């Protein structure tokens, strides 16, 4: 093992910032991160072992206890559920004779769920040792079970199991007008940094990852910071359930995304760039590295780019299963090889980001758009869109629709038009912007896609009449509790209180006071949480409460208070031991119920 660690450390150039990469390698080789590995890493990197363990225990794809040789995790996004992932999961568990969350006794396989893997338009999906298995069916599950039982190495599994498709259904301004490699840099060279920045300003481009901060302003602020080293980071964490447009952009438009990053570097004066790629997109890593290599060969990356006398290169760093790492300051912590815990602000990343250097963090689509604006100009982009939301937005659409996939719209488009295009009927509600976004019902379809009305980082999920709204809300609420980083009190405790409280109501144990309690917890999460995760974690509960209050009410008992635990169920063990099931061996939950 020591040799392996020594090699792994050498491959990562002994940089403690690349700890996550080393731990991924250990996990891959041993099926977990054994205590010895932590010791060796600690000794070789000069990091306290506690800090290494903290990283192992933070990320979903790392574990401190052994996992199966085949580690299969099913995506548990609501869209995967709607496509039947639960039944397929049970089928595989039966075929392999393995309990969820437990390693099989022969150490061969472990089976569990994970948060949305970004394959919502081709679900139900799973990952096997990090590689995607999209569009699962009963046949495929049977095949997979056979391959596992025969211990066939992953490399020899049939390719069709791993085939990820890109469905661009409706391209617009950006997707129809790709630039050629080097074109945006040429424009920068010819017109100068100030002029390109001015075009970016004119374009009105705002961040496509969620918050909508003006891109030109962000770049300007970073350029104005003192300090010799600046950093450009592309946020490809894409963890918001229902979002998969960055996956497609990195598959088909990666060159342009890298060009956008290089343009940014040229303007702000950065030498170092990172693409932070979510661990779920491991399958994109090699193809992306290949594109980086070819850009270097073309002189578009590396030293003295295009003979313009400026040096810049991009390194890809993989995440390891943590939604919070999409939050820009948590992402930077993760880039530094630490647990993804959001930083205190101020200072903001533009002032002190990666290794305290001024850092621009932008979404994949933001860099894509910036490169196009560099070539075609700000007015070209601003001609589309409306008001303070200029240009177009690329959406990932999934759920109940005939044509799930990628759509590009000018801002200002009405929800009704989007739903017509993707082929929906009998819509009950739409989740715009993912679980942290907004739930609207069918009476709100005249509302518009824009930063001022319905914002979206790219996720749009459609639900038909007949879908269980509380079940959707429950899925989202559990997601946030699972993904809370645990740093701050309101989110660490509150997200779990909210989940338990909601479960209590959904399971039919709630009374009127319990709904009021939901809003009380929501208030604390929203107002006191440290970052956007906690601040938005109660949105699904609240939005559904506003639009479908009757659904909550229908689950309530007609009493004023109901204990959180089930008295009668608690007696089950005693009943089994005493082999009794007569009426006297059961307890009523409350006095009122006893007298019913």
């Amino acid at each position: 093992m020591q040799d392996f660690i020594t090699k792994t450390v050498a491959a990562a150039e002994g940089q403690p910032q690349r700890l996550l990469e080393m731990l991924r390698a250990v996990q891959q080789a041993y099926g977990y991160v054994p205590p010895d590995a932590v010791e060796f890493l600690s000794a070789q990197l000069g990091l306290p072992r506690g800090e290494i363990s903290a990283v192992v225990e933070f990320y979903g794809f790392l574990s401190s206890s052994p996992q199966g040789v085949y580690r299969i995790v099913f995506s548990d996004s609501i869209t995967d559920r709607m496509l039947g992932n639960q039944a397929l999961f049970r089928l595989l568990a039966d075929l392999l004779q393995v309990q969820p969350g437990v390693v099989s006794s022969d150490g061969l396989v472990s089976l569990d769920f994970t948060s949305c893997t970004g394959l919502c338009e081709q679900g139900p999906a799973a990952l096997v040792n990090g590689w995607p298995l999209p569009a699962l069916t009963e046949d495929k599950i049977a095949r997979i079970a056979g391959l596992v039982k025969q211990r066939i190495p992953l490399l020899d599994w049939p390719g069709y199991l791993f085939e990820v498709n890109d469905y661009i259904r409706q391209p617009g301004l950006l997707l129809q007008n790709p630039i050629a490699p080097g074109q945006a840099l040429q424009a920068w060279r010819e017109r100068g940094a100030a002029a390109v920045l001015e075009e970016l300003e004119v374009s009105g481009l705002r961040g496509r990852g969620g918050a909508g901060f003006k891109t030109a302003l962000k770049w300007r602020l970073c350029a104005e910071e003192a300090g010799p080293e600046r950093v450009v980071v592309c946020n490809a964490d894409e963890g918001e359930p229902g979002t998969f447009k960055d996956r497609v952009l990195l598959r088909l438009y990666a060159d342009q995304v890298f060009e956008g990053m290089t343009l940014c570097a040229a303007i702000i004066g950065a030498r170092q760039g990172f693409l932070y790629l979510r661990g779920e997109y491991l399958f994109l890593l090699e193809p992306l590295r290949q594109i980086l290599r070819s850009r270097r060969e073309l002189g578009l990356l590396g030293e003295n780019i295009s003979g313009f006398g400026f040096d810049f290169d991009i390194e890809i760093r993989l995440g390891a299963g943590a939604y919070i790492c999409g939050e820009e300051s948590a992402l930077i912590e993760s880039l530094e090889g630490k647990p993804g815990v959001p930083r205190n602000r101020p200072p903001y990343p533009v002032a002190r980001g990666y290794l305290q250097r001024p850092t621009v963090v932008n979404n994949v689509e933001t860099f894509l758009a910036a490169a196009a604006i560099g070539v075609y100009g700000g007015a070209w982009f601003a001609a589309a869109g409306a008001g303070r939301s200029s240009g177009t937005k690329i959406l990932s659409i999934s759920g109940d629709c005939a044509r799930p996939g990628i759509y590009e719209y000018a801002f200002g488009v009405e929800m009704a038009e989007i739903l017509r295009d993707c082929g929906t009927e009998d819509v009950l509600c739409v989740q715009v912007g993912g679980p942290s976004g907004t739930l609207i019902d069918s009476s709100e379809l005249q509302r518009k896609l824009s930063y001022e009305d319905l914002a979206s980082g790219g996720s749009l999920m459609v639900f038909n009449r007949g879908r269980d709204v509380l079940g959707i809300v429950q899925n989202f609420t559990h997601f946030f509790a699972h993904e809370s980083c645990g740093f701050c009190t309101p989110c660490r405790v509150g997200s779990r209180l909210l989940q338990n409280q909601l479960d209590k109501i959904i399971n039919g144990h709630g009374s009127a006071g319990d709904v009021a309690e939901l809003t009380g917890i929501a208030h604390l999460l929203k107002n006191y949480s440290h970052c956007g995760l906690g601040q938005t974690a109660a949105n699904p509960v609240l939005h559904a409460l506003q639009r479908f209050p009757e659904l909550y009410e229908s689950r309530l008992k007609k009493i004023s208070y109901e204990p959180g635990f089930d008295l009668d169920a608690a007696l089950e063990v005693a009943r089994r031991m005493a082999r009794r099931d007569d009426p006297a061996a059961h307890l009523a939950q409350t006095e009122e119920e006893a007298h019913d």
Partner: protein
Amino acid sequence: MTKCINIDGVNVPFEEGQTIMQAAENAGVYIPHLCHHAGYAPHGSCKLCSVRVNGRVCTACTFPAAEGQSVINNSRELQADRRRLTQMLFVEGNHNCPSCEKSGDCRLQAVAYYLRMEDDHFPLFYPPRPLDSSHPDILIEHNRCIVCSLCVRASRDIDGKNVFAVSGRGAHKHLIVNSPSGRLGDSDISTDDAAAHICPTGAILIKGQAFHRPIGQRLYDLERIDGSPHAGEASHEA
């Protein structure tokens, strides 16, 4: 001319680079807090020090003071919400004040009294948490840990040892010990370390000292955590 911020109508001077909390402490203005400790790097995790700065909620222990800030610290809304946050800390662990050696000296208990917390409000989690009594002189009672990370900072920044770290994610966040076995007995902590004394609750205790000072004569038996006397139940709500 000294620069000032305004806290609940009172002008409080500050120096450039200070946080709102530092300015308040220098002026003797109490802002409830647990993860903050004077002289330690700010952390900003417990959220008890939440104040409204020009209308926006911020943590006083991390937010830089700036000329012209109008800070609301002592409002009915903030005190009520801080009470809820404190209750969250209580239900998340296993806190049994009457049987705890730290009772009367405990900052969690004292802040709960100050915020007039009279019950847990939320359902208790009853997490199973082990006790680490492997060290001859120092005990870790994980049931009482509120993951404020003060011991982590103390050991790293003051003792220069890195005995502690916070591990896990979300609800699984917990304190770990940086020793090969993960037990305190195998670490290089000593009773002289700041880390052995900084815990605001009874999670890290020096053994054998539990009742040296009788209950009734302890720190917060004599005065409340904001420094005010117990007698007369002085109102602290606006």
